[in-house]
């Protein structure tokens, strides 16, 4: 939680990507001089961009099907069309939120951002014709299983940053301090991963449970091991490869494997 309204809005991200108009940009620059939280958020975005700049586009969506991608991008940018700021759904911590936004934005690139802003979510068929005089309708609930799948997708999306960061580092040049960030982030994701894996098992969602289980092993190894040397990094990379974790996460993230 933060007291800064600017922090809660997507302005920092839009400023970072040069999407603000000149007047807004000037106001944002002035605000950044005053607000340490927003400065930190901007710095987080820079760190993420530098990290992702080294990555191959292994998690780009399959050609021709951008729907899931656009939906997440819409989530990240949806508040830009609103006169009032609207909070994002998945924001356990400010850093994680910026990471989620940044990862999505970096992967989609600036041009896609513009398209997304000009292409809002297609109109949902439900309730489109409800009149204002009608009494509130008790709508059929979103099935819990679908909700859990969505939650799992969001979690995998957050976790992808860690796995990508680990998978694509060059062990020859990586020092222990260079992947300290991934180690810390892995630790913060571990408890939720375990909880979601077990929930998936309870629901009989074996594919989700399987991916979460593989992710859990990677996160355990990354966050808890005493070793951060070259061999350890290579071993984690082998683990990711042998379990096909990135591919599985991508498939799950696209919603087709759930």
């Amino acid at each position, binding site marked *: 939680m933060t007291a800064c309204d600017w922090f809660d809005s997507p302005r920092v991200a839009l400023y970072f990507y040069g999407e603000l108009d000149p007047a807004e940009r000037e106001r944002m620059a002035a605000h950044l001089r005053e607000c340490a939280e927003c400065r930190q958020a901007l710095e987080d975005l820079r760190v993420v961009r530098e990290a992702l700049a080294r990555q191959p586009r292994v998690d780009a969506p399959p050609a021709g099907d951008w729907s899931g991608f656009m939906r997440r991008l819409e989530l990240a940018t949806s508040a830009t069309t609103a006169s009032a700021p609207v909070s994002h759904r998945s924001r356990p911590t400010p850093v994680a939120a910026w990471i989620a936004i940044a990862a999505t934005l970096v992967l989609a690139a600036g041009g896609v951002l513009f398209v997304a802003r000009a292409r*809002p979510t297609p*109109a949902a068929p439900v*309730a489109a014709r409800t009149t204002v005089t009608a009494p509130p309708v008790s709508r059929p609930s979103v099935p819990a299983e679908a909700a859990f799948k969505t939650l799992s997708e969001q979690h995998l999306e957050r976790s992808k940053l860690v796995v990508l960061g680990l998978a694509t580092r060059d062990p020859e040049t990586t020092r222990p301090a260079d992947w300290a960030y991934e180690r810390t982030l892995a630790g913060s994701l571990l408890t939720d991963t375990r909880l979601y894996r077990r929930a998936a098992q309870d629901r009989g969602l074996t594919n989700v449970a399987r991916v979460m289980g593989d992710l859990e092993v990677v996160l355990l190894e990354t966050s808890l091991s005493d070793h951060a040397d070259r061999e350890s990094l290579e071993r984690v990379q082998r683990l990711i490869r042998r379990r096909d974790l990135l591919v599985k996460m991508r498939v799950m993230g696209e919603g087709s494997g759930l």
Partner: protein
Amino acid sequence: MNIKCFAAALLAIAFTAGPALAAPPGDSQRLGRAKDYIADEQWAHAIAELKAAVNDPKEPSRDEALFWLAHSEYQAGDPAAAIETVARLERDFPSSRWVRPARSLRVEIAERLRRDDVLWYVATPPPPPPPSLPMPPRVPTPVAQPPSPAPAAAPLAPATPAPPRWTPEAAPLPEQPRAWIPAPFHADTDLRIEALSSLIRDHPDRVIPLLKDIALDNDDVSEARRAIFVLAQSGQPAARRTIVDLAREATETVRIAAVRELGRFGGDEVTHQLLRVYADATPRVKREVVISLGDHADAAALVRIARTESDATLRDTAIITLGRAGAREPLRTLYADGPRDARHAVVTALFSARDVEELTRIANTDPDPAVRRDARERLRLLGRR
């Protein structure tokens, strides 16, 4: 000559291979090999390497090896061995960071084997610290009186007051299952949540209040959120009512988490429940309710908020959320008879709903030039002007 060559070759071999032969095989290399076997899910090979590692006093990461051994034993279908290994890890390395995930593994095995006694032992909240009792007043000892007999059936007064929420009548303190947990310990909150999530299906009446306490009393929002997640996941009506209570009673951050889970996993009554929460919520919680209603595309509830909310920011959020839900008709009505200062929000929402027809009408007829300009701009973005 041949002998010289042979001797030279021997020397060369000794020089190059000597250090390797002199060094003990294994230690961290052995652990590394075991991890590669784990990556390949070759559990028998992994167990063999790890057993050698944990019994090697020169192995610098025996605690880590013990954890992976327990993990591999469980994966290989030997939960009894895994439990023994977890106990050994706790005993030999009580302060190791690997103890925590090992305890999670034990909870998982206990659930699989339906050992509710183990789960209850882990889920039990730690007793409160004993309060510092005031010194009793001094009573002068009577000199020449016979000692008064002790009342035969009077219960002994407890040394410390009973814990506030844990009474023997409600639920007796579970006995320590020594075969599973040789050394007593108090679980951290996340481990308790894991155990409670294993118990909630069979014991909802006991588990739900404990999860509620965790969500209410916890300073750590992540732990509170996880407790609410377990409640929401259970699908129990009582759990859902508890989430509604949390959304109305807890701290603001926990209320937001509760609204989020309510919206995500809510059943048929979710609209009613969300509106109940909305009635006495803070602006931040209200905004979360609006977003949840939008996720359910609940246009009627959003319209009600758009019409009745006095906070313009919240009202506009509801209107824009209507647009994302594609609710064109309610937006047209709101434009016609809603507050004038909401028209910019309505235009934005119509843009989200891609209602070109209504935007065109507004762009041509609205008396406010700023609203007309706004509508034209939106039409341009939609490629219609």
